[in-house]
């Protein structure tokens, strides 16, 4: 019996393609405690969204599948669980906020029915009771005149409002875990500030754990207790948030942190960069993929570096060239 809400162990997920199996997530492990926020940060192709979708079995089928490892939510194994079990988990134990509200919401259905869909599925409510709850939820997420907005279509709402609707849907059954996949990337910065505040408030009120996926290190710094840095399908570093920013240990983390333009930098100063770019997923080496990016040669490309626990909540992929 463990204390963690969510335990991911050696997770491997991939897609069947014409050129064979493409492993987007290549053996990662982490835990999330009740009430805490874990950020997963990484750039395109690192596997962060595939990780999230693997947890709730939303990888595009039949090509996408979890290939290995274990996903335990409140001590219940979710990998290879029956569809009925996943229907129960999704929306009920786990709420999801997707990146693009216009893509995630049904454009030809009014907002009200989309919110209550989850309620009707998981709770014993009449349609009227559910609609009343939906209005309450819209109010809780800060939408003015919620009783009117219930009848709107998604395209009638602004980006910020649509994201609030997504949050309402994610929260309606009081889940224990909230998965937020780039929840503010598509929003203007002043609206992003509102949404991040709302998410913090909701989390505090409800004692939810949150898995926050983003490429934005500023959002990570402000919202997360702990951070996992992913690169090319693997975790390269994991640490409590203050430690990660104060003392990054992996070359990739260091590179990422030093390449962000900050308001406090002197203007027109040269930015540090990470040369090159992530390799195509089919070309990933079995060894250290950051060495691959940096154009290094030798053993580090064939030997997969060990993922070690350093103590104090810190973990590191210990490639001799990168750490």
């Amino acid at each position: 019996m463990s204390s963690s809400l969510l335990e991911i162990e050696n997770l491997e997920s991939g897609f069947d393609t014409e050129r064979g199996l493409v492993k987007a997530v290549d053996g990662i492990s982490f835990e999330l405690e009740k009430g805490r926020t874990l950020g997963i940060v990484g750039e395109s192709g690192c596997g962060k969204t595939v990780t999230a979708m693997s947890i709730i079995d939303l990888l595009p089928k039949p090509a996408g599948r979890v290939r290995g490892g274990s996903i335990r939510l409140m001590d219940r194994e979710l990998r290879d669980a029956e569809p009925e079990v996943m229907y129960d988990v999704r929306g009920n134990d786990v709420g999801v906020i997707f990146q693009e509200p216009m893509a995630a919401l049904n454009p030809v259905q009014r907002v009200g029915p989309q919110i209550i869909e989850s309620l009707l599925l998981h709770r014993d409510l009449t349609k009227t009771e559910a609609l009343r709850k939906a209005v309450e939820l819209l109010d809780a997420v800060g939408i003015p005149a919620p009783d009117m907005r219930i009848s709107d279509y998604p395209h009638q709402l602004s980006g910020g409002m649509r994201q609030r609707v997504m949050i309402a849907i994610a929260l309606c059954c009081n889940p224990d875990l909230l998965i937020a996949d780039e929840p503010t990337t598509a929003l203007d910065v002043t609206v992003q500030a509102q949404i991040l505040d709302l998410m913090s408030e909701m989390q505090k009120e409800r004692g939810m754990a949150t898995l926050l996926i983003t490429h934005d290190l500023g959002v990570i710094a402000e919202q997360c207790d702990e951070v996992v840095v992913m690169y090319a399908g693997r975790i390269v570093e994991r640490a409590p948030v203050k430690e990660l920013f104060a003392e990054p240990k992996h070359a990739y983390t260091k590179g990422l942190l030093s390449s962000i333009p900050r308001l406090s930098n002197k203007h027109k100063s040269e930015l540090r960069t990470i040369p090159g770019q992530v390799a195509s997923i089919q070309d990933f080496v079995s060894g250290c993929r950051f060495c691959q990016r940096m154009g290094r040669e030798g053993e580090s490309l064939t030997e997969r570096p060990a993922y070690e626990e350093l103590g104090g909540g810190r973990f590191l992929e210990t490639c001799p060239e990168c750490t």
Partner: protein
Amino acid sequence: MHFPVRGGVLYRQTGSVKAVDGVDLVIRKGETLGLVGESGCGKSTLGKCIVRLLDPTDGRVVFKGTDLTRMSQSALRPIRQDFQMVFQDPAESLDARMSVGELISEPLVIQRIGTRADRVRRVEELLDLVGLPKTAAQKFSFEFSGGQRQRIGIARALAVNPDLLVLDEPVSALDVSVQSQVLNLLMDLQNELGLSYLFIAHDLAVVKHVSDVIAVMYLGKIVEIAPAEELYANPLHAYTKALISAIPVPDPSVPRKRVVIPGEVPSPIDPPPGCAFGHRINAENYQASIDIPLELKEVADGHWVLNCPCCVNEQRE
């Protein structure tokens, strides 16, 4: 070289959409003017008015002493060598069916510059300038990553040796580690070639990094202009302050003192009278803004702010 713009309004048939509402800007030779604002503020429209991809309905665009505003497209064509545009989404702005060599040399073809052999040489020169291998010329844009495609777009914009580049969200679609590469490239090119930039973006941290002067736009109007460091150190307009404080700081040890402004980014259709931002935040003196003409006033050296009674505290903090 001054490049003053007095942009005007765009009218739609069913009503008036003041996408750009009386904007005065000056870009000096070798200088970067950053234009920052959120969606719908009119920054992209302004950029397009400047390069005459859109025709301003009022005001003037004066480039190197010549008034471009009402010139015919054919008269404009030779002048277009002197200013070029780089777009946000390299996937959309590069024709997928043209080779990289064809893409980069297209402006040379249009301007009838050089022989075919000259153009091949020029393409090689430009690829080298933006840090891409010569072999790229035979490939197609979809064979490259986002950052590389953006370099191709920059190479294309530089083909005709312009004095001014208008860059519309040039790094927004790129990963963070690639953003910094492209930003460094732009700064290097500016030094090497003496270019002027109009750098349009929504990310104030990025804009501040590359700009000499920054203009902040809200609902079609410029609310504040100042040298980059000054804007950050002494923001005077409430919107600028809110924008600065809304940006998440990548440093968990800095205490969060975010000014969260309520409401939505406005739509330019049917804007409220007077100061739109004052209206959004229910400012105390909002009513006073309705009857006075809102204009930029210089309050310190190079620091201009809208004379808005509800959003500006003239006291410097």
